């Protein structure tokens, strides 16, 4: 029984702005299914007395003091950018959306 449909993969691909072919949609649907199936095994061992957890460490309240630290220079910050203009990251236009 398939947990992930082809349509769902297509929807996720659209949200991530990935152009997938029909073959790829089928391919990833099968793979995602296998991943979900593997993760679902956890549910088999989950007992009533084990609360769901999202973190591996039993920690809370890890904070830092509100202190300023050295930032990068703009040159450093932009050194890995594919395109730069006016000390800013230059990115392709995004259609159909607005900030």
């Amino acid at each position: 029984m398939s947990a992930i449909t082809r349509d769902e993969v297509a929807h996720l691909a659209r949200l991530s702005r990935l152009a997938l072919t029909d073959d790829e949609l089928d391919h990833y649907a099968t793979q995602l299914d296998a991943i979900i199936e593997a993760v679902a095994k956890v549910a088999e061992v989950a007992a009533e007395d084990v609360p769901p957890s999202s973190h591996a460490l039993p920690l809370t309240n890890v904070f830092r003091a509100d202190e300023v630290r050295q930032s990068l220079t703009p040159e450093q910050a932009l050194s890995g950018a594919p395109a730069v203009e006016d000390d800013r990251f230059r990115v392709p236009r995004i259609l159909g959306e607005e900030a």
Partner: protein
Amino acid sequence: MTMVYDEALERFEPVLGLETHVELGTRSKMFCGCKTTFGAPPNTQVCPTCLALPGALPVANAAAIESTIRIGLALNCSIAEWCRFARKNYFYPDMPKNYQISQYDEPLCFDGYVDVEVDGKPVRIEIERVHLEEDTGKSTHVGGATGRIQGADYSIVDYNRAGIPLVEIVTKPIPGTDRLAPEVAKAYVTELREIMRSLGVSDVRMEEGSLRCDVNVSLMPRSAAEWGTRTETKNVNSLRSVERAVRSEIERQAGILSDGGKIIQETRHFHEDTGTTTSGRSKEEAQDYRYFPEPDLVPIAPDPAWVSELKAALPELPSVRRKRLQAEWGLSDLDMQAMHNADAIDLVEATVAAGAPAADARKWWMGELARRANETGTTLAELPITPAQIARVTELVASGALNDKLAREVLEGVLAGEGTPDEVVEKRGLQIVSDEGELLAIIDQVLADNADAAEKVRSGKIAAAGALVGGVMRASKGKADAARARQLILEKLGVSE
């Protein structure tokens, strides 16, 4: 077609919702040590964490957590005993991580309220949640005619703002405001701004974006039982715009609904110049953000004892303070409301603290100084005069050294940069003539020049003395004490009142 406001309100009932974002005034960002200075050169306040470089990990800013809890307490919220950050995933280059760290179903504060007063009526705005997240970078769209994203060739992004702590305050739906909906929205945001100021957690400058407001509006026909579809209007950058955006959206939606159309759930943009909204992107469903607990940050579990301490240490809130000051000053509701609207309460309070009677402090700030501010298009606080200087002027008037006319000239001099009130009095020679000899000399001259009037007074027509007092005031260029001059004139002419 849009429908005129009155007609729209006859047929439909508006339901409001407000989402307000407050940039906290912490020294460093939410999850890294970069500075938060407004207006710094692009990409000078960024580091591996806020640029999402591989291997960098966020650590939450303790001061931001504290400020958020204090905001929640000031808004009468419950504080979560345990909550987590969540990743909000979306495809947009304003966050280099491709997600924003926010909170989802576990906000730090929830279920509060804010009371405001509109048209003399109390209105309680219920708060759904107050949560903490990080601000996004700033995109500039290049190319295209409008500087907006439609038609732009590409965008350039400055990440200085990315990662600045941002508190989002969300109201529950607000029904029942009826035709006062625009005023209620404005009063709520005004009150929030003052609460933030009193807490000292943000500079809340709408024009710089440290206070931003999204306005949700829906309409339901008067006979309907269910709320209509809402729109969310962004880009509302001033208190006046909050009011205008609500009004414009009511008129637009009423027009569509009465033509048999449907409202689309969408984001809209407010335009200052036209006072209207235009369509933005259709809103993604919450599930499209694929929220999940942020694995890089451990949960927050505020110690209840600490929360109690923070609560006990909250400053006096603005509404409580206004009531207290009104009682202390003995001013009317109307005076108090006018001062509130003019942002004069702090100034009057400081003037009273500097020794002036409240009525005098109010008179100068709301009269002469409000007129000056209005003329020059500035706010009262921006006028180049201090509350202590106003207090000194009221002192000079009370001691008889100045009358009101001279006091106005002193204020004019101080505003023109001629120095302190005492310096202006000195330089402009504005002291009331208190030297009796000088005054008597002026009176003798006026009596000699106005023999007819003097004779009338001598023969008992005391009313004619007014003209003589006027003459003395003119001859002294307004610097004589009019009451004393009248006394001396009558004495000289041998009559009594």
